[in-house]
């Protein structure tokens, strides 16, 4: 059987790569893609913990389903916001969207 550590390390790698994407991208869509990677890393962790620590209950998988639903909602609203900003300001480079920055 595959050790639990391996899954946790892969999830940690995915999370850190997503974090780097969120912090370093200038394009708002790129930032959203980084967030999706981070949410996926969390889901891998949850399923791995369910499988190795508590396979008789279904709590781990239920949590993953809720995270998936929230991620879908987040992606839909986030991309709608990006399209609205692009229509008004003609840019989706986050450094140029500084209306509320003093």
């Amino acid at each position, binding site marked *: 059987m595959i050790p639990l550590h391996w899954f946790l390390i892969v999830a940690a790698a995915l999370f*850190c790569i997503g974090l780097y994407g969120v912090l370093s991208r200038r394009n708002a869509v790129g930032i959203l893609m980084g967030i999706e990677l981070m949410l996926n890393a969390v889901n891998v962790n949850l399923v791995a913990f369910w499988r190795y620590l508590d396979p008789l209950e279904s709590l781990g998988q239920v949590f993953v389903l809720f995270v998936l639903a929230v991620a879908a909602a987040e992606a839909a609203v986030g991309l709608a916001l990006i399209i609205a900003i692009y229509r008004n300001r003609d840019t989706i480079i986050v450094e140029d969207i500084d209306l509320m920055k003093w």
Partner: protein
Amino acid sequence: MVLQAVFMLFSAMAVGAALAVVTNKNIFHSALFLVVALLGVAGLYVLLEAPFIAVVQVLIYVGAISTLILFAIMLTRRLMDASERQRNEQWFISAIVAVGLFIVLVLSVGQVHWPVVHTDVPENHLNRLGQDLMEHYVLPFEVTAVLLLAALVGAIVIARERTR
């Protein structure tokens, strides 16, 4: 041994494609690499004996969310072609933070002793999952339904063209 090899394959697919997602100059190619990364994660779910989650991952992430992202890129593409600079000035600090966090996570994962139980997943686990969703977790389930409806309405209202 076969399992370990398959695990290596899927995790290399996920991590490699994720690296391509955050470093690729062309944002459209990044979105396509995101699809590969999400498929790799779906493979990891299969290895973890959670086939339902794997199918849901393919349906929602690969099917819906990446299509949405590709649409958003195509609608905003004019300004973001490959010649545009894609990294901001703080990318080097970000890389240090990400690598540092990864080292901390790997070290702490190695130190914890996880109480692993060696039982198989029950045969009718999917039935159990459905029943639990409708009994124990029915309130969060319904709240999620309301959240999805609110997100749907909100996305339409925000992205719609204002006509006077």
